[in-house]
């Protein structure tokens, strides 16, 4: 009996041991799976697609209506470790594949106490420049496109460089300092034949040793039960390397002698505010004013052999948004934006020969043009949030140009001709405010 009992006990022990080994094996496999899974959870994908229909009322725009994919973004974020993040975001829009973002963020791990604990981060790579509307995602923006002033001074929004960001603990202050190549996404070279601005073909690659510096600071106030007010300012200090021996100012009369290699300055300042109030649902009023001096490079030769001058233009621009949420699903937005690329001359003076300048050797026939006219745009938009992922937008932009003068015969000093679908020739008369409004119906899917 004892032998039998011993045998049963041994058998049970053996079975328990076997079960333990199996459990340990499963445990080991589970830990391996958990380890693999935890690596995968460090990778996050997000993105959005904006499919839209546009109707252009400017008769020079052909086709006057079209379907398009405005943005097709896929953003991959890898959190390699606590405080280390890699981000890559291409845009897959048809015919224009481009790398929008590619950067690494390193959070400070050296300060463990006080207001600067985990407060400092370094971002390096290609990322948004330091401005409210630039950094505000297109998937969230309440009107289809950024304001004209922002699109003009920060073309493409992104730049290659680095930034330091400080968010002190317990203080609603954000300070950003950045340094960039300075010629990103730009239209900062003059065409050698027309004297008008041409696309920079060396986007994101520097061609001089000058680096552009940006600084931005924002501070948030809480306004009790009403809401909050964020205020801020940013500054841009940049230079382009002169390739020619003259710089023409935007009054079209002042010419500075400059040597090849001199710095052509581009400096501007902006002040911003965002006011949020809980008045029968959320609403906000946001605005920014930016003014300063921008520059485009000359240097290529005119047909007569003269060098084109550099061009420095004093500019000013602003935008104001009023946004109102109604319930969880609906949102209305209104934006008024203004951009004057040349504050030194009036629209009525554009193309007038007295502004052609006195030094023809240096500036040739370079004259003020359409590019010196101010524009205002009043945009109305309604958004319907079908769910967290789908947003339907109906927007209408009312665009108004600054008027040019007329000659003694009553003809406009600047006009554009276009060919109608029936072959007839039409004219956009810039001495009048002509119809260039735009309707956009957009479906955005975001994940």
């Amino acid at each position, binding site marked *: 009996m004892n032998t039998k009992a011993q045998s049963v006990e041994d058998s049970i022990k053996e079975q328990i041991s076997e079960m333990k080994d199996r459990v340990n094996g499963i445990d080991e496999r589970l830990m391996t799976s958990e380890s693999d899974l935890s690596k995968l959870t460090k990778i996050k994908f997000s993105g959005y697609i904006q499919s839209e229909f546009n109707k252009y009322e400017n008769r020079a725009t052909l086709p006057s209506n079209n379907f398009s994919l405005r943005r097709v973004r896929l953003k991959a974020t890898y959190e390699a470790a606590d405080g280390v993040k890699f981000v890559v975001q291409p845009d897959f829009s048809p015919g224009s594949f481009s790398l929008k973002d590619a950067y690494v963020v390193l959070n400070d791990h050296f300060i463990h106490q006080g207001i600067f604990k985990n407060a400092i981060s370094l971002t390096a790579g290609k990322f948004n420049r330091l401005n409210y509307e630039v950094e*505000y995602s297109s998937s969230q923006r309440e009107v289809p496109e950024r304001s004209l002033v922002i699109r003009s001074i920060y073309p493409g929004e992104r730049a290659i460089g680095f930034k330091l960001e400080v*968010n002190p603990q317990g203080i*609603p202050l954000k300070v950003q300092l950045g340094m960039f190549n300075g010629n990103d996404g730009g239209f900062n070279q003059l065409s050698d034949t027309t004297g008008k601005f041409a696309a920079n073909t060396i986007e994101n690659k520097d061609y001089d040793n000058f680096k552009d510096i940006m600084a931005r600071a924002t501070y948030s106030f809480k306004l009790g039960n009403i809401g909050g007010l964020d205020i801020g300012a940013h500054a841009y200090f940049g230079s382009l390397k002169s390739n020619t021996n003259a710089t023409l100012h935007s009054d079209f009369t002042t010419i500075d002698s400059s040597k090849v290699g001199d710095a052509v300055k581009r400096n501007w300042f902006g002040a911003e505010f965002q006011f949020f109030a*809980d008045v*029968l*649902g959320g609403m906000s009023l946001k605005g920014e004013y930016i003014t300063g001096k921008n520059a485009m490079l000359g240097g290529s030769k005119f047909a007569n052999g003269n060098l084109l001058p550099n061009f420095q233009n004093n500019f000013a621009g602003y935008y104001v948004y009023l946004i109102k949420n109604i319930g969880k699903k609906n949102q209305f937005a209104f934006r008024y934006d203004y951009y004057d690329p040349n504050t030194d001359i009036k629209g009525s003076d554009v193309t007038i020969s007295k502004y052609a300048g006195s030094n023809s050797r240096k500036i040739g026939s370079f004259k003020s043009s359409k590019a010196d006219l101010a524009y205002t745009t009043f945009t109305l938009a309604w958004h319907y949030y079908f769910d*967290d992922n789908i947003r339907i937008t109906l927007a209408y932009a009312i665009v108004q140009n600054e008027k040019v003068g007329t000659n003694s015969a009553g003809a406009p000093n600047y006009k554009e001709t276009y060919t109608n679908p029936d072959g007839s020739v039409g004219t956009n008369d810039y001495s009048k405010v002509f119809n260039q409004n735009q309707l956009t119906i957009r479906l955005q899917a975001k994940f």
Partner: protein
Amino acid sequence: MKNLNFKKIAAFLTIIGIGIISFAFMNQERITVKGSDTMVILAQKWAEAYMKKNPSASIQVTGGGSGTGISALINGSTDICNASRKMKQTEIDKLKARYNTLGVEIPCAKDGITVYLHPTNKVKELTLKQLSDIFAGRTKNWKEVGGANAEIRLYGRENSSGTYVFFKDHVVKADYAPNCQTLPGTAAVVNAVKKDINAIGYGGAAYSAGIEICKVKKDANSPAYQANAETVKKNQYPITRYLYMYLRNRPTGAMKAYIDWILSPEGQNLVTDMGYFPVR
């Protein structure tokens, strides 16, 4: 501005105005609550008691963690978010971008994050520094803190939990040790500690039945306190925090009535009944 049609714009604005007023006075009866697992039993108790008192009210409560609740608040899938931590600036920014508000923060209870030990563990109290060393993986054996010669087994919450974030920020002050097992909910942490004699875990005070509650000292020279109504109220217990409800907008209608009731003596009595500590 000649070609702006002001009549059309005025009509457009009028329609919007009517819409705003209509929405403002819509009486929403069904309320969804989502968020902190620490708060889920309290939130369920509130909902049950309130619905019993107000049969027309419909309140649906789910957990998932503070981070999950805040995400739900931002994406519109919940009306009230329960959170055992404050909203982060990045989360407020998302709320601003989507709803143009900063959200409404309502402290509704206080909690002492409790450190759980197995009842057979010789260790009965720990300093904040010792807890930090244990959960960061710098202290690996119980004998280093006066216990048996055995490996310390760590149990904690998932990173979507407000308790996880609060304990990390205020106690661990470093990354959690890689061998800290993350579990979905404080109840799961308590169960794991009950079954493992070498375990240590953390969670809300309301879940402490059947396990040993570790006393906590600010430092080696301070007295050790257990989380209870008095020590939490007097801020003597070193790991004390507020529990919050977050809303997108200032409450109106049924939502306001429910929140007013939670902050009333009746609602706050339930806080005490459920093992938390009242704010009023």
